[in-house]
């Protein structure tokens, strides 16, 4: 069994950081992407063997630089986790009160960013699939992608688009051997959730470490069932 090579966007906080730790603990080779240089360097120092990459997936100009660094850091790519995400306006707002720019940023981060990064890394992923290592794109979804919640307009609409895009990628690239998973980790005790629901009782929320274990299990299962 080959050591999986995994890239995670939004890897310095919340679920992304928990995934970096969990996948590293399981022996994967891990690269992670985030916007803030100091945070990226700190997390990379704290987790020897991981590769930190500074970049903003919402910026078109950053995408190929990020892809280049992922591929050189890992020597290829088996698993891409599209985790980074934007809530849209904070505090949350009714759609009628949402500024167009805030909606646009949610779409750039939650839809166009994952689209561009997946596209830029598709060559690496299909190369991995051809060599029988398996290739997976895991998209972190949300129940807001399915249910219409008041005040979650920018986030919910962009997450719905992301989920649907992932499903279409999956249809189109099944023959190339790339599998697309869209998974909802549930409501977690993360900085993103605290921004959205500042008064939530942490005891009622899932720990990101628990969600990371479940997602890592899903990745392992998908890699194992990959036809050689």
């Amino acid at each position: 069994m080959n050591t999986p090579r995994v890239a995670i966007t939004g890897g310095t906080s919340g679920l992304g950081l928990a995934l970096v730790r969990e996948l590293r603990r399981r022996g994967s080779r891990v690269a992670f992407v985030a916007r803030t240089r100091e945070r990226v360097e700190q997390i990379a120092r704290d987790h020897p063997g991981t590769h930190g990459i500074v970049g903003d997936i919402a910026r078109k100009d950053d995408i190929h630089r990020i892809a280049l660094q992922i591929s050189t850091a890992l020597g290829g790519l088996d698993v891409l986790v599209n985790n980074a995400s934007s809530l849209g306006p904070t505090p949350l707002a009714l759609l009628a009160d949402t500024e167009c720019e805030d909606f646009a940023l949610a779409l750039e981060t939650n839809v166009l960013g994952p689209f561009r990064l997946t596209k830029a890394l598709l060559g690496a992923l299909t190369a991995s699939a051809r060599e029988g290592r398996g290739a997976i794109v895991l998209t972190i979804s949300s129940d807001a992608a399915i249910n219409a919640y008041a005040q979650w307009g920018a986030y919910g609409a962009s997450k719905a688009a992301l989920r649907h895009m992932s499903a279409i990628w999956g249809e189109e690239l099944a023959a190339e051997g790339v599998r697309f998973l869209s998974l909802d980790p549930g409501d977690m005790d993360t900085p993103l959730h605290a921004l959205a629901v500042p008064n939530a009782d942490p005891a009622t929320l899932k720990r990101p470490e628990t969600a990371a274990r479940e997602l890592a299990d899903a990745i392992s299962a998908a890699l194992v069932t990959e036809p050689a």
Partner: protein
Amino acid sequence: MIAAARPIQRPFDARLLVISRNGAITHAARSGLADFLQPGDLVIANDAATLPASLHGVHLPSAAQIEVRLAGRSSLAPDDLRFSAVVFGAGDWHMRTEDRPPPPPLARGDRIALGPLVATVDGLLGHQRLVALKFDGPPDTVWAGIAEHGRPIQYAYLDRTLALWDVWTPIAALPVAFEAPSAGFALDWRFLDALRSRGVEFATITLAAGISSTGDPALDARLPFDEPYRIPVKTAAQIRRAKTRGGRIVAVGTTVVRALVHSGGRAGEGVADRRIGADTRLCVVDAMLSGTHAPDESHYQVLRAFQRDDVLARAEAALEASNYRTHEFGDSVLIFSHQDSAPAGELSRNCGGPVRATPDVSYVPGTLNA
């Protein structure tokens, strides 16, 4: 031919000139490429992504502005940070390389600042402008610096500055090429689907395509520099199976021909150090998809392995007469070889024609063709 000045990888009206095994010439739309392939054939492309290999900076001993073009490496390993590089004086791609001023005199040990990176001249490689270059710092930092500061190598006939997405083929994977393996611009995912439905297989190799032109006659005479490559086990198996069933091997680009001829189609890593020319035995390769190349380009020599000079002269005349577009964003040629293809059992022997007596894979690729 007309220079293709716009960096559009797949213009809707791209054309394809087909040269058959017996030298017959056909004009077609490149969108119909799959029609020239048969069930059982195997198409092999170079999946190297392209580095932003042009780095502007300062030669610290002289404080002179320079441009460094990374041009070669002895392996594909990400932690191998020793490059051969061609150095230019002040100016950028808008000026023809032939007209570029030379760099200041360079010496071993000279320090060069390239944006966030610092490199040291590790030696001269038999020419004033060709150096061995070693970057300071750990691999992640160096690649981040190249990603941030580098720009794709490009030439004066283009009408705009290239971004990385302009030069990555749709299948671009490991970033190791110094210039784009541009024959692969013709590939898109719909084409790969079309191959599948036709019963044509697809495979990849990775070869660090080097610099194609320096503007300096003495240096250009040494091109192509040695290029490290890898043939995946799966690809080697597909080649054997295709040969066994009588399928043809169609190489996408001169880089794939070079890797397949050097390796004989066997799996593994190597450094392609032989030029392909009229006397090369192609044995693994039956056809090549490439750009349109004029007789004064080094790539043209590769065509001479596929067909006799009189056939190539007729093809060249046809490209000129019909105003085909040339250079990396131009039209394409599909050329079938007049050589007899080797059966599967002979793949590992006698490939490539003349072989160097003592292959030298020491660290500086640029020295080997000298």
